[in-house]
């Protein structure tokens, strides 16, 4: 049977941000199971751990110490095992070049981080809902590009 929840992994070095995100996910209508990691390196070791159940979607902060979002994205895209995971990048940057570059490198979703919580909630609800459609309707993930 198809699962009726979305597995989310969130990679962000800022504790307040992690809290905002997990709170926002909690309020969604779609059931979510969220786990968080503090940086890119942790994310990769989590994904590569043999007992990890892979998430349906990863939210990736672009600016992280140790291993930043872009390098993480490149690593993830190199491994065929992760090809079904949707990648959502978020950043404060709204430079067209940055955005297009993350898509070209294989990101599915680009979120310009909003300044207030309600807006963040709305954006995350939209992202998770559209991802749900991809997840449940067999849409082609290679063509999944979304900019919020």
């Amino acid at each position, binding site marked *: 049977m198809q699962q009726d929840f979305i597995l989310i992994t969130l990679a962000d070095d800022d504790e307040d941000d992690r809290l905002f995100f997990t709170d926002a996910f909690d309020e969604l209508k779609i059931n979510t199971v969220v786990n968080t990691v503090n940086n890119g390196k942790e994310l990769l070791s989590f994904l590569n751990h043999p007992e990890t159940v892979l998430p349906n979607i990863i939210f990736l902060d672009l600016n992280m110490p140790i291993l930043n979002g872009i390098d993480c994205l490149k690593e993830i895209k190199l491994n065929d095992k992760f090809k079904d995971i949707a990648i959502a990048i978020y950043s404060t940057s709204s430079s067209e070049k940055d955005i297009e570059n993350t*898509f070209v490198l294989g990101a599915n979703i680009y979120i310009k981080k909003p300044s207030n919580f309600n807006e963040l909630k709305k954006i995350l609800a939209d992202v998770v809902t559209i991802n749900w*459609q991809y997840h*449940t309707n067999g849409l*082609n993930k290679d*063509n999944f*590009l*979304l*900019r919020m």
Partner: protein
Amino acid sequence: MKVFIKFDFNSICKKVLEEKLEEHQLKHKVLGFGEIEFLEKISEEKLNAFSNTLLPYGIEIVENQKAILIQKIKDVIMDMIFNESTNINVKSSVYLADKLGHSYGYLSNLFSEVTYTSIENFIIIQKIEYTKQLIINNQLSLTEIAFKLNYSSVAHLSSQFKNTTGITPSAFQRIIKKRREIATKNIN
């Protein structure tokens, strides 16, 4: 060498089903629109085994009545959009209600409740999905795609594409092209 392929979901599904039904020696009739009638009684064990061989293809046996109706709504919509020989002169709401024998209000409420999106939105998502496929195949111009998908104008299609995905059709095309260039480079 690189080639582009296009495929027809309905034919693929039918073919897989026929083959698997054959393989499991189940006497059956395919009724279309995702319905199969078994012509003899089948043990739960046999049905489970059959169901399991379908899972890798993304095909599953739907169990409860609500889920069945939702699936039928989706199938009718997909057929409306992807199948060129299905010609519809009425509004999609009228067509759905007529085809499925329930009021549109009922279908629409049920759909929103279970899928977290509205029928209208689902139709848009699917049309944009089809547009993406056609853009990538490179055979039709955006104007031709707009005509094919019954948009009143290319501007209407473009703005719906931008509203749904956050990017323009030309940016989409550019990104996919660049991705392919990188992928080709990595192979060589």
